[in-house]
């Protein structure tokens, strides 16, 4: 009757559910049995008189108080479980969920993002901090027995500890219009090692931009903070504007010149102090270890696309690729 159990909540919820189920079966059979028995046992016979029983105070008190006691017990039983739903442990992995018509966007602590594809490690508490960009949605994972509405301009949350590896299903449970029933995401519960590897590649969002590296780069310009210092319209900021910079010979502080090509851009991100353009302060932090290969590729392609001659100049990546697998991992 219930879906497979996927989280540590499921056992308890299902226990209460089945308890209520059998209680209901007993009560229903009691009511039905009594009604049917009366219809047969006391079926109509012409002229038979019926007793004039107006009430029975003791009986009526009993059948008011007993259900009340039972109901209060069930209430506390339900509250007990609900309290556990409500408070996530402090060390839970936090994932930001943004719902919009009609897709799910997941953002991981390191900034990796995925669309409609959620990965979490097994046996670790995960806390989802959720908001909506448009109307109400609802994050519902049947196998985990969790659900909560997602509201624009406000954060709601859900947490659980997945216990079963493999694919699960996230589904929208608050009506949101035309695509409501198609608003689904795949949830993959994986081992720690698999999850770590998933994060290293930065999720799966970049794959959608495989053929459009410049667009991917523009997203990184915004997300990674490049936009704070580097404008796109030629305006001077803390650092040089990226407009028309590709393929130019920049004058450096020591008087030498450098060609803005793939190597120079890459070096400026990893070792920003190496070659400072004349007139600017050496204030840029290094992005070593903060940018993934496909993000660097995207940024280079984006800067090229801002050049005076977008197609020309030195070559830049025309596609995105995964980082080279490190030697340790390939050994595994």
């Amino acid at each position, binding site marked *: 009757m219930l*879906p497979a159990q996927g989280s540590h909540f499921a056992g308890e919820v299902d226990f209460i*559910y089945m308890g209520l189920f059998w209680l209901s079966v007993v009560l229903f059979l009691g009511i039905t049995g009594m009604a049917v028995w009366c219809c047969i046992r006391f079926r109509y016979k012409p002229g038979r008189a019926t007793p004039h029983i107006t009430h029975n105070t003791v009986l009526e008190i009993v059948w008011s108080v007993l259900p009340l006691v039972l*109901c209060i017990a069930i209430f506390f039983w339900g509250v007990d479980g*609900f309290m556990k739903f409500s408070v996530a442990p402090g060390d839970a992995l936090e994932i930001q969920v943004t719902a919009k018509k009609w897709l799910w966007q997941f953002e991981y602590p390191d900034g990796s993002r995925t669309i409609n594809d959620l990965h979490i490690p097994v046996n670790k508490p995960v806390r989802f901090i959720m908001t909506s960009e*448009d109307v109400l949605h609802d994050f519902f994972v*049947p196998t985990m027995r969790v659900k909560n509405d997602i509201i624009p*301009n406000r954060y709601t949350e859900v947490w659980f500890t997945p216990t079963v590896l493999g694919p699960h299903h996230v589904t929208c449970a608050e009506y949101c*219009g035309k695509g409501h029933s198609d608003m689904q995401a795949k949830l993959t519960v994986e081992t720690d090692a698999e999850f770590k590897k998933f994060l290293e590649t930065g999720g799966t969002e970049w794959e959608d931009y495989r053929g459009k590296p410049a667009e991917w780069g523009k997203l990184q310009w915004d997300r990674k903070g490049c936009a704070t210092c580097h404008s796109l319209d030629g305006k001077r900021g803390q650092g040089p504007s990226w407009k028309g910079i590709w393929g130019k010979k920049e004058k450096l502080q020591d008087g030498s010149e450098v060609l803005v090509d793939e190597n120079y851009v890459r070096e400026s991100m990893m070792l920003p102090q190496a070659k400072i353009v004349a007139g600017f302060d050496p204030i840029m932090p290094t992005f070593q270890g903060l940018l993934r290969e496909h993000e660097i590729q995207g940024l280079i392609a984006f800067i090229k696309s801002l050049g005076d001659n977008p197609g020309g100049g030195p070559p830049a990546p025309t596609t995105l690729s995964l980082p080279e697998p490190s030697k340790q991992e390939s050994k595994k």
Partner: protein
Amino acid sequence: MEHALTTGKIVADKPRPAKNYLNETSGIWSWMTTVDHKRLGIMYLVGVLSAFLVGGIFALLIRLSLLTPSHTLFGKQLLTAEAYNKVFTLHGVIMVFLFIIPSVPAALGNFCLPLMLGAKDVAFPRLNLASFYLWLTGAIMAITSMVLGGVDTGWTFYTPYSTSTGGTVGLMTMSVFVLGFSSIFTGINFVSTVHKLRAPGMGWFEMPLFVWGIYATGVIQVLATPVIGITMVLLLLERVFLIGIFDPRIGGDPVLFQHFFWFYSHPAVYIMILPGMAIISEIIPTFSRKTMFGYRAIAYSSVGLALLGFVVWGHHMFVAGQSQLATVIFSFLTFLVAIPSGVKVFNWLSTMYKGNISLETPMCYAVSFLLLFAIGGLTGIFLGTLSVDVHLTDTYFVVAHFHYVMMGGTVIAFIGGLHYWWPKMTGRMYNETWGRIACSLVFIGFNMTFLTQFILGSRGMPRRYANYLDQFQPLHAFSTVGSWVLGLGLFITAGYLLASLRKPMDAPDNPWGGTTLEWKTSSPPITHNFEEQPVLERAPYDYRPEVTHV
């Protein structure tokens, strides 16, 4: 005509009155300007049954399109997702606002209440007529809204979807506003009538229990309905003038809308179910030929439910963003609802115990009600239990639960009441055999349709889905077949009831041996209800053979 199980053929012992409320005046104008509560009851009956037909066709369409996961039938797409969303919205809006809310009070209540009180009419007959025209206006607005493009918000009109979607949401919400006033007028009228127009000798605890139910309903109608009116106006202000009330983009709060909406719509659940329970409280003693067990407990539980109904609205919002403390409190209050509901069921069963029970069609519906309402009530406990509700809310489990209460409860009681008072209203008997066959089909079809949906919901099938995962298909298909059986049962019912009008089989004044005052007048009643002012000599449901004065 065979009535082997029961009292035998029911025949009129005297001719029906030559002049009665149906033929005393004639012509369409005499009906349109009537202030006779019985005629208004009939007009309401025709109105709400038409709404039931339209809402029912939408229901069959919903089930048909859910027969297969991508709503295809023989390779053709039946409904697009947009069309599906409009169809389930219209099903909900029509069934709730145009059918169920006015069904028992405005149609059967209008007809029976003054008769049961021994009164000539309701307290404010013109207000009664105004109420009907408001209902008609609301219905026309709703139909216009449907024709002009329809609404896809769900009957709950949740913001910010309802403030941002297209369609004729404005007109539909104004229709709900107008229908609300119709409901308020009916409530005011019935509360006043019960207070002021009881027959001599009829104290509060000599009133039929139907009157108690309608009275409690009237109180809720008057107190709760204004809130939905205000909410609909605020929604319209937001949609038209962009005043930020509910939409967060312009500074509003979408959860506030849900509080406002359910502050009315939960009491409205009791506007719907209390009159249904009230009908059952009439049918069961009559067909058990035994006095009502625990009359006062039933009367008090009606009032208790009406009051409790005001403080449990938050149980619609356990996972909707209200505070956890509020959720826990609302869960507790919700459990209290189980007590008066249980008390009623136990009282009805005790009334049947040692009775002299015959199973004519109204009693078949009453027994159906007992079983279906029991399922509706017991599954309510699942939804009140917080940790279980988190999994079940917003799934088909909820859909099944409220259909068991609204359809299995109120609508089944309404149809039972319609059969119970049909001889009084029309002066004609219907075909009893067909009545029982249809009742069985309705019972079986209903359970096929909705029992499966409890399983669907438990397995995680969310509600309001135009499309679904393949794994749910067998249960959906079974549910759809059930809806056809249910539809067939209702179709047969309409057939033999209408046939009873064409092929006269006159009804006696008191075909079932009822003890309340409406059976003391002719069938159909004369325009002024009684030849002379009836005086209550016996408490209702007193089946002792000797005459006992109270």
